[in-house]
């Protein structure tokens, strides 16, 4: 069937081996005008080298302050079917396992009430239902909650949809129950997620181990990353098997198949703290110097495993560049047990949010606020003691704000007495 708009430019994107989103959209465009016009908008953009969406308006569902991104086309004259093209963010199940039943329900709903296009998934983790009109929003929400047992995710100045790596579900290294934590936090903080009361957005992300497969340290205001406090578990026989070439190194990530692993070169020499010795027979890890970087475990998954005294490191403040430059999260709690009902952690979250909300300027992310007011102030608010694990290096500039409480007489100098000792 011929589509409404000629699209010679984007048709070029049907070529080549990688799945073509244009081919995919075209399947639906044959029966959905929204998709037809969307292809038109895309072609127009490809001609103009400029996008054709207007600045988002505020649309949403009653009682929620987020979950919908309003979007209008700036050429409704040419592309009327996408004059409105709002996005709905649907909170994904933690770690994104699905059964086909729920997926088909989503498809059915979105074909009926939306464009039939989605993002699986958005960068934050939501299921993105891409493109519908204002009048459909409440309908979709109703059906989601009533028929699919699903709810909207976050947008705006509120908690954003938490997400996590698959952790214990299919990974041998997870030190914490990533899905359980993520689901618990999401449910605990439904109000914060749906009703914006924060200075700006706030994100939680949870990875099971320092490999950080959900990129928590780069993308979450609060990054929860699994770790352990005791010793790496070693199966010496398996180490020898790696050395002997019985296993594929690095879980065969290099496609070498079983092949002799040069344990000294590929493991010991790449250990960032050089805390591993290998004498050809036994591997010795000086765990007191291990920084749990995962490298040796990654390379020899059949021989090494994280310890069993597990928990998480909590880091705060990651964000994209706007406004004050990008940040990675910084260590705030070196170790915390993460077991239900996560009271210690939630207590920490409450204090963190209180401080942020009390001091936050409009559109100031937590990380920026810590920058502005100082890590010290943040720790004070959290009632946490300073720990060298929170820093890469102590200060090198001598501009120290000494606490007047530590100074005899505080900030006062007796000027008269001073001038008795020293003539002006």
């Amino acid at each position, binding site marked *: 069937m011929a589509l409404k708009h000629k699209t010679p430019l984007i048709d070029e994107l049907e070529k080549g081996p990688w799945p073509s989103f244009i081919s995919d959209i075209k399947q639906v465009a044959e029966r959905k005008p929204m998709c037809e016009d969307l292809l038109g908008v895309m072609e127009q953009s490809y001609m103009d080298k400029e996008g054709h969406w207007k*600045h988002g308006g505020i649309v949403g569902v009653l009682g929620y302050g987020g979950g919908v991104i309003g979007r209008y086309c700036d050429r409704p004259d040419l592309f009327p079917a996408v004059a409105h093209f709002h996005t709905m963010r649907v909170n994904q199940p933690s770690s994104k396992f699905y*059964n*086909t039943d729920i997926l088909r329900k989503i498809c059915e709903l979105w074909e009926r009430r939306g464009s039939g296009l989605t993002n699986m*998934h958005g960068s934050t983790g939501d299921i993105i239902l891409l493109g519908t009109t204002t009048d459909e929003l409440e309908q979709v929400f109703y059906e989601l909650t009533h028929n699919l047992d699903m709810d909207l995710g976050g947008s705006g100045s509120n908690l954003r949809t938490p997400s996590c790596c*698959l952790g214990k579900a299919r990974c041998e290294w997870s030190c914490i129950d990533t899905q359980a934590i993520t689901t618990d936090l999401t449910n605990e903080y439904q109000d914060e997620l749906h009703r914006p009361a924060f200075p700006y957005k706030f994100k939680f992300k949870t990875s099971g181990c320092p490999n950080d497969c959900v990129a928590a340290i780069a993308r979450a205001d609060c990054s929860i990353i699994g770790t352990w406090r005791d010793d790496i578990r070693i199966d010496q026989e398996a180490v020898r098997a790696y050395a002997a070439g019985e296993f594929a190194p690095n879980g065969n990530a290099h496609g070498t198949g079983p092949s002799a692993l040069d344990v000294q070169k590929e493991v010991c020499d790449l250990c960032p703290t050089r805390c591993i010795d290998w004498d050809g027979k036994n591997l010795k890890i000086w765990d007191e110097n291990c920084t749990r970087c995962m*490298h040796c475990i990654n390379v020899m998954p059949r021989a090494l495993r994280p310890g069993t005294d597990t928990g998480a490191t909590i880091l705060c403040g990651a964000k994209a560049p*706007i406004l004050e430059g990008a940040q990675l999260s910084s260590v705030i709690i070196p170790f915390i047990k993460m077991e239900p009902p996560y009271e210690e952690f939630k207590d920490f979250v409450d204090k963190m949010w209180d401080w942020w909300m009390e001091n936050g300027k409009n559109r100031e992310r937590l990380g920026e606020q810590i920058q502005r007011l100082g890590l010290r102030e943040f720790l004070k608010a959290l009632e946490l003691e300073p720990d060298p694990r929170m820093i890469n290096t102590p200060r090198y500039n001598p501009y120290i704000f000494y606490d007047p409480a530590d100074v005899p007489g505080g900030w006062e100098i007796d000027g008269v007495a001073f001038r008795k000792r020293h003539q002006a």
Partner: protein
Amino acid sequence: MAFDPNEPMKDRITDIGPPHYEQFFPPVIKENYGKWKYHEILEPGVLVHVSETGAEVYTVRVGGCRLMSVDIIREICELADKHCDGYVRWTTRNNVEFMVDDKAKLQPLIDDLRSRKFDAGSNKFPIGGTGAGITNIVHTQGWLHCHTPAIDASGIVKSVLDELYDDFCGMRMPAQVRIALACCLNMCGAVHCSDIAILGVHRKPPFIEHDRVGKVCEIPLAIAACPTAAIKPAKEGDLKTVSVKNERCMFCGNCYTMCPAMPLANAEGDGIALWVGGKVSNARSVPAFSKLAVPYIPNEPPRWPTTVKTIKKIVETYASDANRYERVGEWIERIGWEKFFEKTELEFRHEHIDDYRLAMTTWRTTTQFKW
């Protein structure tokens, strides 16, 4: 039952949160939760995880356009029903994972996936994205949905992945290579910490629609939005508006986010900057930001040839020069930036030298460098 616009609060259900993950676990996952012992990549895109109980789960990872129609999702459902007892998952980088609990079920699944193509010829389910290869490109909306992009997203990703297709399906890289794209400086995605990042940039300051500013913007918010304080309140005749000191503008677009009457998208100004050497994992080296490799490449729809070629050149240089386990940033750290620019034949320009708040921490304060 359906929504009744006249009684919007009737039967209203809110704050139920996401469906519980456990109901979506295939039985082998549920039964072996927390009991996994080790894994192995059998071939690119195919993993086995072995449990302490002896159980095994075989995973086939396929590249997804994360922009997916209901049709392709339904096709995924069909596959999942056929091979995987009706379960499937998505990864954190938008790949799709099909899991089976028996090796015998593996080959039929793989064959089925490989057989499916779009009419125009592209593969629907390329298998790969594991280990020391190039996995799916995390990306954002681009011209398909957002209002602030300087570039498209999906089209560039498609063009780049067509070129790198063999490395999605292979594992010949020294280490994993993570590529990401963001269509503007908001960087919706972890592009600031990617091995290779594709970033949409503007190069013209906003033009100010004085007649609209007062109507559609909150002027103080627009002013506060500017990181370099380039925006000042102004008057045009009777109109309250703003002015921008162009020399101070570094094209972040944050003003436009706050004020629609200050657009800065422009065909001639906009384009792509490439960044390299970021990482997220704590493996070996610590997480790191991506650094500027190429300040500007023009938008070249529909196939972005210069961008594609430049990325390919970086990837090939890395592939041939880095040591095993060395991420792009670790490789550059070892050889030095002067060698990176030499080997990749990229030009070093004034844009590479930082001039924002922490700039001085990026200067070279040692006599150590290479010729």
